[in-house]
């Protein structure tokens, strides 16, 4: 297993929830856990890129989805990866209803804050995975 936990956001382009996943992934990989996480672009997995497939097959993977179609989770599984934990923006929003995301190109304040909530949860899960404390979902 790779030491880095792989983060795969859906990054859906048409809706604000997709942007929240993208922002949260960057927050984790660039700010919160830069030494222990890496992002794998979903577009590479869709295409079947060998490097991307190898990355998700050889690591613990956290997915983030913006809608119920769960593209990130499904694509990781179809690529042969084991999803250790899947997060959805909708669940995070239900737990934090004051943080209503708006905007696609640029998130509003609520969207940024919701992304931070997700990022914090993912950072914590990353630590648990590194420590061996989370079973694969």
């Amino acid at each position: 297993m790779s030491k880095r936990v792989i983060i795969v956001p859906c990054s859906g382009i048409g809706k604000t929830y997709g942007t929240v996943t993208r922002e949260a992934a960057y927050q984790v990989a660039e700010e919160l856990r830069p030494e222990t996480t890496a992002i794998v672009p979903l577009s590479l997995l869709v295409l079947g890129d060998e490097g991307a497939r190898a990355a998700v097959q050889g690591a613990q993977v956290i997915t983030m989805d913006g809608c119920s179609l769960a593209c990130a989770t499904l694509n990781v599984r179809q690529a042969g990866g084991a999803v250790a934990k899947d997060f959805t923006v909708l669940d995070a929003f239900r737990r934090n209803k004051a943080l209503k995301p708006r905007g696609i190109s640029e998130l509003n304040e609520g969207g940024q804050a919701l992304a931070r909530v997700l990022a914090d949860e993912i950072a914590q899960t990353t630590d648990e995975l590194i420590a061996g404390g989370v079973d694969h979902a």
Partner: protein
Amino acid sequence: MPSLPKRKVGIVACSGEELPAGTVTRLAALKALEDLRPSETVTICLPLFLAGGEGDRAFARFYPTIAVDGCEKRCAARATELYSNKPAASIVVDDILAQHNLPAPQGLRRLTPESGAVVDALAGAIAAEVDHLMAVRWSRTDGAILEAAPAAQEAVSTSACACGSGIPVTTVQIAGRAVQIMALEPILELAYNQGLRANGTGALPDEILQTVQVYNTVPSGEEEQYAQALDLAWRAYCEQREGQNHG
């Protein structure tokens, strides 16, 4: 028969997170979709091709798409062709940089202010390609440009899928309930143009039900009822086409 929607162009952006150019594709696609050509474009979600987005696959099968990629791996263009149909146009950020003599974009999560020019140039290229594709005749059967002549005005109104993909949906009665069949009319058109006909004695051509199942979920155990409903639609379509041919 239902009428077809006004043609739209689908934009598929790679949106890759690991390269600044991926962010550029995402922002440029959104600019084209929201600001430059909002009435002529729809977005197609690349991951949905693999995750089972029937509407997205159907749209790209029958309507023109523009793939916008951040690198030479061309994930958007290749995945669109792999799962649906060859894009009508393919744009790569590097080509735009060369054409406009722009520096490579910088920044992943936040592009640098200087990179805004790349987004603008790419969005402009997308819009120009949209204009081109709206001006030419498009064959839904072949999924390709027919010729460079101006398109005839669509003499129709829209009956598009609620998913926002712009795909026409046909409502049929199955077991006493109204069921929407995605992309049925383009499928019937494809079959008719391939020489298939409703001959009065034969059953529904297998190809039609099979193609319908690519873009629609047919519940297990209801195949026969779907086939009957599709047969009625197929016969009506053939009658309409033959009436046009002789009228």
